């Protein structure tokens, strides 16, 4: 076993189970790599070396005691800093939570621990998950392992970069408008947004409650499915959690067969604003699916082009309400409490000092969209567009089992390129937002390097709500064909 950091999650769990390596050795190998390389990438905001080694030793002890280990026991994982983890700093990429150690575990955190996975630390993200580049992190951006001058996507850039840079075979992200899928696409990794309500939001610090969904990041489709099954399922602590059996995504990833499946290509996600190299690799991916026996048809979803506009009314509205909880009273930063200022003044000073530009911009925008006189014109209209987008999906899924598109219109852009132009930044999520608005499942799987710049391109696969298994089936079939023809995409990434 020459390099324990290069294995898949499934292989890692197997060698731990079979005693070929201890969970502690596996964990130490990843911690060593992080210590050596992460100063270039900055994927982590906090590395919990002590906690990780302790968790790994517990897995080794359980094995020594003859206990049956789960399918991912002993596998290291990087956790997006938007999840609470008891006793471990949780910042959401914000100064307002700097130094906060939560008193409880999120349900996702708890399930990961219970499954014997080893949490290495907390990954970098755009502040409160608002952004597409990690440049909105109060603690500095993450760099794309493919080209350190480029963005790793966002908001979960730290999670995807961790996986791409071999800091961990698995990571957890959250996807409100594309924050798992877009980073996956631009780092040459796999990322899945489960059906809304498929994974508990308890302990996930809320951005937009009707859109937020946690999901897996991995270097291959089966690993993503294995992690998906660990975190999915009903949670009584989340009132929007779906009380139904979780889709059998691992079986679907193993089946990896698209023969006879009907795949719809979304006509609206092409043309102006789409990089030529992205469109080329996407068309080739569609050809591959046809060769594998899928029936490919073109479908029109005419309201998808309005999704971005609806999203940037719905999201700020929900986040302006959610972020009201940061009031400088019970936890987090407090600024200006000199004994004479009122609570309201201290609250206002703290929020101005503790929040970054994008967060303030969206709070003000949401407050505007919800204010009397504008509510109907903005928030109400956006909710009607949400209905139209859901109807487009419904009509398309009558003709197709899944829909496909490029995950992002372009490959990774340069750090700094869009930071002063919020609208240009928002365009990175053009293709991913519709699934958040409808609540369906969607994922991104690598489909090659763009010929114009040599950077990874993602294929997005969208499925109806609770049909997460379908997208894994398609993704796994495509991945097998791609790897067969070209080898794993990350083999083409520069050594770090």
């Amino acid at each position: 076993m020459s390099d324990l950091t290069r294995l898949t999650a499934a292989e890692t769990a197997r060698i731990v189970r079979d005693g070929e390596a201890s969970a502690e050795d596996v964990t130490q190998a990843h911690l060593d790599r992080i210590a050596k390389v992460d100063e270039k990438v900055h994927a982590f905001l906090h590395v919990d070396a002590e906690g990780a080694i302790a968790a790994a030793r517990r897995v080794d002890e359980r094995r020594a005691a003859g206990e049956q280990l789960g399918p991912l026991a002993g596998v290291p994982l990087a956790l997006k800093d938007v999840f609470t983890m008891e006793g471990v700093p949780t910042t959401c990429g914000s100064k307002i939570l700097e130094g906060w150690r939560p008193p409880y575990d999120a349900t996702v955190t708890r399930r990961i621990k219970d499954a014997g996975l080893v949490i290495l630390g907390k990954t970098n993200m755009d502040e409160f998950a608002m952004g597409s580049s990690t440049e909105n992190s109060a603690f500095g951006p993450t760099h794309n392992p493919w080209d350190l001058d480029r963005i790793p996507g966002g908001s979960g850039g730290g999670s995807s970069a961790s996986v791409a840079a071999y800091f961990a075979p698995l990571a957890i992200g959250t996807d409100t408008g594309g924050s798992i899928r877009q980073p996956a696409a631009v780092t040459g990794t796999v990322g899945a947004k489960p059906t809304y309500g498929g994974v508990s939001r308890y302990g996930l610090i809320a951005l937009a409650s009707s859109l937020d969904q946690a999901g897996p990041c991995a270097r291959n489709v089966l690993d993503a499915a294995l992690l998906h099954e660990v975190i999915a399922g009903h949670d009584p602590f989340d009132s929007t959690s779906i009380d139904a059996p979780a889709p059998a995504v691992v079986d679907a990833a193993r089946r990896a067969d698209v023969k006879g499946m009907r795949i719809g290509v979304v006509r609206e996600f092409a043309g102006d604003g789409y990089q030529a190299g992205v469109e080329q690799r996407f068309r080739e991916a569609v050809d591959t699916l046809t060769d594998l026996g899928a029936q490919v048809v073109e479908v029109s979803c005419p309201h998808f082009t309005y999704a971005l506009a609806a999203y940037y009314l719905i999201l700020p509205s929900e986040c302006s309400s959610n972020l009201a909880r940061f009031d400088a009273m019970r936890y987090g930063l407090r600024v200006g409490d000199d004994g004479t200022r009122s609570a309201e003044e201290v609250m206002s000073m703290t929020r101005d000092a503790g929040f970054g530009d994008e967060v303030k911009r969206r709070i003000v925008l949401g407050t505007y969209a919800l204010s009397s006189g504008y509510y109907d014109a903005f928030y109400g209209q956006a909710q009607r567009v949400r209905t139209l987008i859901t109807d487009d999906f419904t009509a398309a899924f009558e003709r197709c089992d899944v829909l496909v598109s490029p995950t992002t219109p372009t490959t990774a852009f340069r750090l700094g390129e869009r930071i002063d132009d919020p609208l240009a930044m928002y365009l990175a999520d053009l293709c991913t937002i519709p699934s958040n608005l409808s609540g369906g499942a969607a994922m991104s799987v690598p489909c090659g390097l763009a010929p114009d710049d040599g950077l990874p391109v993602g294929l997005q696969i969208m499925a109806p709500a609770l049909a997460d298994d379908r997208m894994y089936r398609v993704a796994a079939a495509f991945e097998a064909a791609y790897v067969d023809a070209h080898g794993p995409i990350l083999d083409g990434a520069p050594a770090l």
Partner: protein
Amino acid sequence: MAITRDEVAHLARLSRLALSEDELEHFATQLEVILGAVARVAEVAADDIVPTSHSVPLTNVFRPDEVRPSLDPAAALAAAPATEGVRFRVPRILDEES
């Protein structure tokens, strides 16, 4: 879709954000551009379309009203900026106008 500096100041006050003069100017310019772009929802959002607030059909979810273990006061207060006894200590909340 003009939005003035004064409107941004009003919204900031409602949002409990003590924005600086520079921020007010900067956000007014940016919000105008963003609002101009998102206003296109009006092109298709006809009145007879039922608004969607949530993708999952939601009904109230109840649990039995039973006592169960929860955080002890020390753990709940551990991250507070200021405490007094077993309480959160906050700046004055009364007589704000004086």
